[in-house]
């Protein structure tokens, strides 16, 4: 004899062929790994560069001097802007990513089955998000991810 001891969870299967898939998953607020989401088709790649200071070298002989100002260090954060046109019920799930403490991106989409998953932590940029109007059934979303910062030289 056996009895059902959990709710019945309906899992939708999305077998669309996709270009440029980006697979994201995250820990949700009740403490489970939320089944992920694939953003596809097109992403915008950007990089946020900050200058962490400059200095002015002493030029004893300006005839051979190379500069009057040099950069101490820079800070580079690659970014990826993803967008999707999704059902409202999916937004309700995806929005949890925006406030999850741990959002992961799958780095080896083609080989994870043989070599294991390689995850990188990415951070959705914080802010106030307009998600959808309740009158809609599908809506457009756009999320900016900060990818891991680059390690760079410092003078």
């Amino acid at each position: 004899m056996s009895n059902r001891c959990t709710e019945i969870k309906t899992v939708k299967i999305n077998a669309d062929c996709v270009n440029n898939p980006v697979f994201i998953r995250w820990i949700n607020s009740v403490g489970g790994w939320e089944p992920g989401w694939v953003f596809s088709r097109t992403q915008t790649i950007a990089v946020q560069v900050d200058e962490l200071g400059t200095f002015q070298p002493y030029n004893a002989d300006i005839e051979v001097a190379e500069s009057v100002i040099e950069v101490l260090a820079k800070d580079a954060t690659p970014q990826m802007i993803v967008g999707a046109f999704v059902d409202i019920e999916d937004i309700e799930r995806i929005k949890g990513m925006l406030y999850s403490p741990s959002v992961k991106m799958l780095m080896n989409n083609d080989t994870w089955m043989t070599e294991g998953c390689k995850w990188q932590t990415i951070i959705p940029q914080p802010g106030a998000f307009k998600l959808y109007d309740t009158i809609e059934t599908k809506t457009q979303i756009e999320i900016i991810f900060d990818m891991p910062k680059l390690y760079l030289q410092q003078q």
Partner: protein
Amino acid sequence: MSVSIISYPKKIVNSDSAQVSKWSAVHQPIVFQMARRDYIVHHISNNGSGNLKLDLTASSDIAVGDIVYVNTNGIVGNLQAITGTTGSVVILGYGYTGAGAIGTGYVNSLTTRKNYYVETAVLGINTLTNTYYQLGTLISKPTSEGNCNVDCHEHLKSLVGYKDQFAYDVINKRDINLGKGFNIQYREVWRGHTGSYSTITTATLFYYTNGAKQIQNIYGSNMGDYVPFSNTNTTEPKAKFLCNGRPTYFPGFPFDLTFIFSDAIAGLAIYKHEKSYDVNRTSLGENAYALDSTQTQAPNRMMLQEGYASSVSTVDVWLEAGDSICAGYTVDDYVAAGYTTLDCGIVTPVVPIDLGDTERP
């Protein structure tokens, strides 16, 4: 021991007293309420001179002149012991001319037991060796009346993790980054006295998950609505998966559902059922798959069967609890060749000889 637990971090689910959830969200308080009861009052009477005389059930350390907290037979407050404090008899400077009566309450010895506190050791579980180890201690000072709260969640928060370490190679596996069991033991300490710790029992074996619940959620910070119960309990609503809404499976990408493999279904055969439907919600068949029943007492990651036909549009997934997995070996004195002990029911961690020497895993 004169300190005891009067309230545990547990909730009755669906108003069925057989369904008790011992699982709490670790990012919110996980509170044991303790009560200090130094001496139980056996009998109250008039000492013959118009003062209140208490007969205690044990010999006391209350001396003449001591202030004690009394809460018995409607007499409540801090009173002074005046004479005749020998053995288990205390006479207080409180006028009492009533008849003798059976005592209903207790006395706390405030003056003798200066700087009284309850020290609670929070114990984690090393999954590899199945032994307890000490995470840290908490100090709680009760009020005169003896009640205090012990909140374990700050110690347990250090145990949850944010790495996805599931390898997607088995049908289900526990993820100890997402939660596990813990236990407590406690002792009384006051100036010049350090008590011995209480015995570790399964009565104080509780569980945490790496979650946070919201205001006005049912069961508060208890995870009661996510805890599956055994096959004999059929009340609705059933336990939820640790996942919101209707998730999407993208073939070719990792997929798993997280659920709490609770202590309540430990020792039972658990089956994952999958019923697939086409785009018109016409059933294409149902299959059941046995889960690994050794992965109990922690949140589990569970994979789908995957490899669905292209006609499958949605899959309904649920768990069923079957019979006890320990039921096969009931013949006396019979042990099959190659038989090893099954983990039947709740796996109780072992208490090491000296908890202080055990290392954190």
